[in-house]
């Protein structure tokens, strides 16, 4: 029922909240929203709100990459943010969001991991990025990716003590992370013959398929994730990528 209704409305280029098919809600990025984190940001897209925080740890580089630090992305769909979510370990949706955000950052080489190395083979920085939902009104994926990049931009390295441990009592250094690129993610949805972006929850539920596209500032593509059971043609994919390239500019402008 809802599906049929949405398709009819999309044919007239109208959404439930009055937007056109290819239109984002207002996108807002706020930086430094948690003093406890080494970097943090809150992103709102309409009524959807997510927060991201960066914590740093000292680790041993992986044996096959002795000159590199590493990054990790985790996402939590807080039961605080929607009646749909329950307490417990991350489910499929949270895991997918985290992994797709991770791929966008990792594959665009957004962070130069060689610059995270402190002593080759011995010591390097680990960058721990946590994204949490505060209010899920649809499109957590794009919001999560944007929040992660914003929190990385905001992050400053903590002070090291004489013994080479993190000194949390000292004020942070003014050294930013080696952030070389700023990928953003746009998820394009398909219902019937219609493409649209920035879905509300009901629109997410009704979609046949979706494609999350991570776009760099050079308009290259650095990660893809198809979701939903509906198949896509090569023409669909090319068209959706065009939409993502165009609308990634609006997300990047909010950074």
């Amino acid at each position, binding site marked *: 029922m809802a599906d049929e209704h949405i398709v009819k409305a999309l044919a007239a280029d109208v959404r439930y909240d009055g937007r056109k098919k290819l239109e984002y809600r207002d996108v807002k990025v706020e930086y430094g929203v948690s003093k*406890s984190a080494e970097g943090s940001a809150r992103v709102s897209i309409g009524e959807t709100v997510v927060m991201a925080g960066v914590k740093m740890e000292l680790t041993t580089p992986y044996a096959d990459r002795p000159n590199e630090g590493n990054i990790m992305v985790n996402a*939590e769909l807080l039961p605080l943010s929607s009646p749909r979510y329950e307490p417990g370990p991350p489910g499929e949706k949270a895991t997918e969001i985290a992994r797709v955000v991770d791929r966008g950052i990792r594959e665009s080489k957004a962070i130069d991991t060689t610059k995270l190395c402190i002593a080759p083979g011995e010591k390097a920085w680990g960058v721990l990025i*946590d994204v949490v939902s*505060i209010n899920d009104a649809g499109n957590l994926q794009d919001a999560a990716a944007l929040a992660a990049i914003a929190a990385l931009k905001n992050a400053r390295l903590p002070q090291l003590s004489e013994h080479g441990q993190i000194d949390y009592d000292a004020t942070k250094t003014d050294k930013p992370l080696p952030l070389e690129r700023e990928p953003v993610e746009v998820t394009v949805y398909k219902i019937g013959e219609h493409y649209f972006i920035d879905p509300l929850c009901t629109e997410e539920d009704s979609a046949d398929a979706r494609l999350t596209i991570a776009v760099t500032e050079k308009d290259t593509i650095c990660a893809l994730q198809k979701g939903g059971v509906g198949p896509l043609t090569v023409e669909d994919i090319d068209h959706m990528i065009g939409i993502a390239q165009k609308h990634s500019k609006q997300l990047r402008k909010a950074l």
Partner: protein
Amino acid sequence: MTYHKRFDGRAFDEVRPMSAQVGIIPNADGSARFQIGDTVALCAVYGPRDLHPRFLQNPGTGILRVHYNMLPFSGHGDRVRPGGSRRSKEISMVMQNALLPALNLKAYPNTVVDVFVDLPQTDAGTRCAAITAAAMALADAGLEMTDLPCAIAAGRVEDKIVVDLNYEEDSFHDGCDIPVAILPNTGQVTLLQMDGEISRDMLKEAIGKAIEAGKKIYQVQKEAIKNSFAKGE
């Protein structure tokens, strides 16, 4: 040793600056944000709603479930591993006891009221901020309540009784921390914990100061709830 001046310059019975808002999470039935100093608590209430599995339902009353959670990036030191800990489990339980006496859940048989508190930024006093936020969110949800619980820590640093300890005072080697939740209208205590060491006389004085400070927090809570009506929400 004598504690002459507080690390952050406050008077001994002075609470940190507070701010409060309700209705911050559109999806929730009730919600609130409470900030005291650098400690921030976000709370969402869902319910009264169906309780599953059904054998947990009580035809005599609704039940309350409280979930306290520090976000992974909210700690003073290393990342906090998500997924709950012994600490968060205990705090959730004592929060439940702190809030229940003010709720008339008999009005909602067979249901559950879920309270979720998440902290994005902390500087000690998290369980007190969580209770204060939860009480506002429960009121924002329109639940039947007989009082509006609030909470604040008192404690000792060296020879002085202090109110609303920050991280530096809380982690000081010579002192103690006493979180207290209060029903402001009756002056009764619904949460009391302590770690550290203190004399009987000083303990009595500390609890008295916490109850005194609670009145200020209660005003902030009431103001936030009134403001939400002023906006026509």
